[in-house]
């Protein structure tokens, strides 16, 4: 959070230097900064929104079925027939990206939602439960958080083989603990605040306190955190697909598209660059959006 808040004080130190007694024109750097902040937000929203729309409508808009062989040329460049060229088997890249984006965005959204629900849910719950259960839950999540996400996914894939439910499970096991940690520390901090103590001395039950005194004050942070988790999960799942251990053919997410066309890299094939850039723009867009949203919220509080 501090990191975000730091961005909200955009004035330089040197600017505080005082000039002569005459009045200066009112041109504060803070004011100049505002459009820039909005620009970042709009760029982020644009990129992220674009990919969400692609995930929803992409398969309908695709000019070809994703596994149709449309060209004899492999690793073909951009042409009017194939706007993003063709892949290693002569399939239309545009269609494949439009279809594959649904996996990348959809799986990540599901996994992020589940992670945050589970993490924040347990985080809230520990406030209600006895101390020793809270300790146990904390211990479990602390253990899970000590296993790097890719490690978790690799170990699970090696044991059970890859499948879409398993990938989601791996992502949730990796990212729910972080969501728990944040929600838990927020909830325990909020629980010590005076308005919660007022509610306790009023004789309110724990459930009321959790649902109506604590929850409304942490929901925004939980949502921001979920956005961050979405970005991480996109990176994790496309990384797994890139290693050939994620989404399996004939289905393909953007990561698998990069992998299957990696052979074209030495020729600078569009087929490998386009899906890689697609993932990049999705995650950068989401990150910019989250950052600018949490920045402006931080400044409202001040």
């Amino acid at each position, binding site marked *: 959070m501090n990191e975000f808040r730091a961005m909200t004080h955009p004035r330089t130190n040197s600017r505080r230097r005082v000039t002569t007694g005459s009045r200066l024109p009112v041109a504060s750097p803070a004011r100049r900064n505002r459009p820039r902040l909005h620009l970042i937000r709009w760029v982020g929203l644009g990129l992220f929104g674009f990919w969400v729309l692609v995930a929803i409508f992409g398969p309908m808009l695709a000019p070809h079925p994703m596994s149709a062989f449309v060209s004899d040329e492999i690793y073909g460049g951009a042409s009017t027939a194939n706007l993003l060229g063709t892949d290693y088997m002569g399939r239309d890249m545009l269609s494949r990206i439009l279809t594959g984006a649904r996996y990348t965005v959809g799986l990540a959204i599901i996994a992020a939602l589940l992670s945050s629900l589970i993490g924040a849910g347990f985080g809230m719950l520990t406030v209600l439960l006895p101390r020793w259960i809270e300790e146990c839950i904390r211990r479990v999540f602390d*253990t899970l958080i*000590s*296993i*790097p996400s*890719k490690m978790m996914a690799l*170990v699970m894939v090696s044991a*059970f083989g890859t499948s879409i439910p398993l990938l989601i499970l791996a992502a949730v096991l990796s990212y729910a603990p972080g969501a728990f940690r944040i929600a838990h520390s927020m909830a325990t901090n909020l629980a010590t605040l005076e308005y919660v103590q007022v509610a306790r001395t009023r004789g309110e039950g724990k459930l009321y306190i959790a649902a109506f005194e604590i929850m409304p004050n942490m929901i925004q942070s939980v949502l921001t955190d979920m956005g961050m988790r979405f970005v991480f999960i996109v990176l994790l799942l496309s990384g797994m697909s890139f290693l050939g251990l994620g989404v399996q053919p004939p289905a393909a997410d953007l990561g698998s598209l990069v992998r299957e066309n990696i052979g074209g890299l030495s020729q600078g094939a569009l087929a490998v660059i386009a899906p890689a850039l697609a*993932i990049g723009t999705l995650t950068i867009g989401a*990150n910019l959006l989250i950052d600018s949203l949490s920045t402006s919220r931080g400044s409202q509080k001040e």
Partner: protein
Amino acid sequence: MRNAIPVLVLGRLSSSLVTLFLVSLVIFAITSMLPGDTAQLILGQFATPDQVAALRTELGLDQPALLRYWHWLSGFMTGNLGMSASNGVSVTQLMSDRLPNSLLLAAITTAISVPLALIMGITAAMRRGGAVDRVLNLVTLSMVAVPEFLVATLAVLLFAVKLDWLPALSYVSTVESFGDFMKIYAMPVLTLCCVLIAQMARMTRAALIDQLDSAYVEMARLKGVPPMRRVLRHALPNAVGPIANAVALSLSYLLGGVIIVETIFNYPGIASLMVDAVSNRDLALVQACAMLFCSAYLVLVMMADLCAILSNPRLRNR
């Protein structure tokens, strides 16, 4: 109260050990919860029941899970990690061949990225709100969200395909000149550094700005302390804990990044060994690699915490 630091340090060490033990339990549980039979899996569908039974005995699969866990764990203590199922070589052997390569890659990356990130973070904090800070902010904000393989692909495209400075995706096994060295390490290190530097620089900047906003830095300013001295003598000593934390957390991220990078550049390290093991479902090797990575991660996080404890002036100057 005088011995608060040893107590805290010991507490932190033992808590790491407990976590490592629990992690090993999780890893073992996942890899032995197979719905099918590992022996069947290894031998394939056409194995005779006798063969499967023989392998089960050989692998110790007919023993209860808790006992197997104990054997596995004690194997770790003694360095006996079992045999690789796919090529019949001992896991220890396989890993010790590859480990130095990975460590070298990590060392070079760390040596380059940490100083660069610190300089970038400190510069951005000092020039807060200025053009440099804004550009750095935008660049790092984008870079932290970029997948490694995008950086790697773009690097190959630029340096190998367009500029033809470096060979694409090839590995030279003997290093005879600086040129060879560059050929091996330039692109993997560049790829790893990109994300790493962005992360560390952001966290360093945030940690430093936290201190620069404090009352004592304002006081120093009102004593006429020049800006450079304010940052280096006043703010930085108090930001050591958070910055160490940032560095350690980012380096632990390196563990994830190295998996992709070693694969994409065909680099013979421990991570690519693990990816192959996962593809071959070579569980003994996967377990061992996973434990190695998790231990490395825990050590890094623990070192960050120790740094924070040791740099706390209230604890240090009792």
